[in-house]
């Protein structure tokens, strides 16, 4: 009697499709180019603000001699750093191709730069989720 089911399945968002073509394209674009997922859904101001924010943070991180993490199985913080970095998508790929961020962290500014690069990736991941919510109609 105490375990009476209270959740009603009729309340579930039946009209919200979990993944459609626009959502898949928007997610991919948003990951590869920060802000592009919003731009292709005609959210121009939001897209430009996200693009400027993520690219500027990544660029400042590079300018401060920040490190770009490679795939690794060593220290836990290095693995988490790689997960954060790869969130930047195209910027991360570009950095690896150009061999940017292949430095030893020897100064405080370099440490700040490393954190900037990681956070740029994490902010881009947040914007990817937001893009998905817009694409499935959960958010305007």
């Amino acid at each position, binding site marked *: 009697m105490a375990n009476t089911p209270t959740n009603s399945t009729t309340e579930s968002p039946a009209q919200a499709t979990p993944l459609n073509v626009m959502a898949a394209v928007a997610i991919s674009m948003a990951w590869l180019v920060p802000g592009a997922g919003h731009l292709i859904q005609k959210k121009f101001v*939001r897209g430009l*603000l*996200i693009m400027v*924010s*993520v690219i*500027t*943070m990544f660029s*400042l991180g590079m*300018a*401060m*001699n920040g490190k770009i993490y490679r795939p690794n199985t060593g220290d836990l913080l290095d693995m988490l750093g790689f997960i954060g970095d790869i969130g930047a998508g195209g910027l991360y790929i570009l950095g690896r191709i150009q061999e940017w961020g292949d*430095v*030893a962290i*020897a*100064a*405080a*500014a*370099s440490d*700040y*730069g490393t*954190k*900037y690069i990681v*956070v740029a990736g994490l*902010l881009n991941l*947040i*914007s990817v*989720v*937001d893009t998905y919510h817009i694409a499935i109609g959960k*958010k*305007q």
Partner: protein
Amino acid sequence: MIQTTLINTMTLHSLTTSVPMLLALQLSHFSAAVIFALFASIVFGISFRSDPRDMVRHGAYCFAMFLGLMMLAAWVMRFLHR
């Protein structure tokens, strides 16, 4: 002991010479934190609210909280350091 010191000095020297520090942007801790707070607040405001007015409000709130907590943490660390 002398050998260890020498090796450490050489390692430090090789580390510092391999990094092109002359071209590195040098930001203070405070300015780095303010720039961080600004861009993080912009993305937070856009991502966590639906209405444009609420986005601006939430972004401003996040920015103020970032700066306020940063100041608070700085004062706490200052008193703990004494």
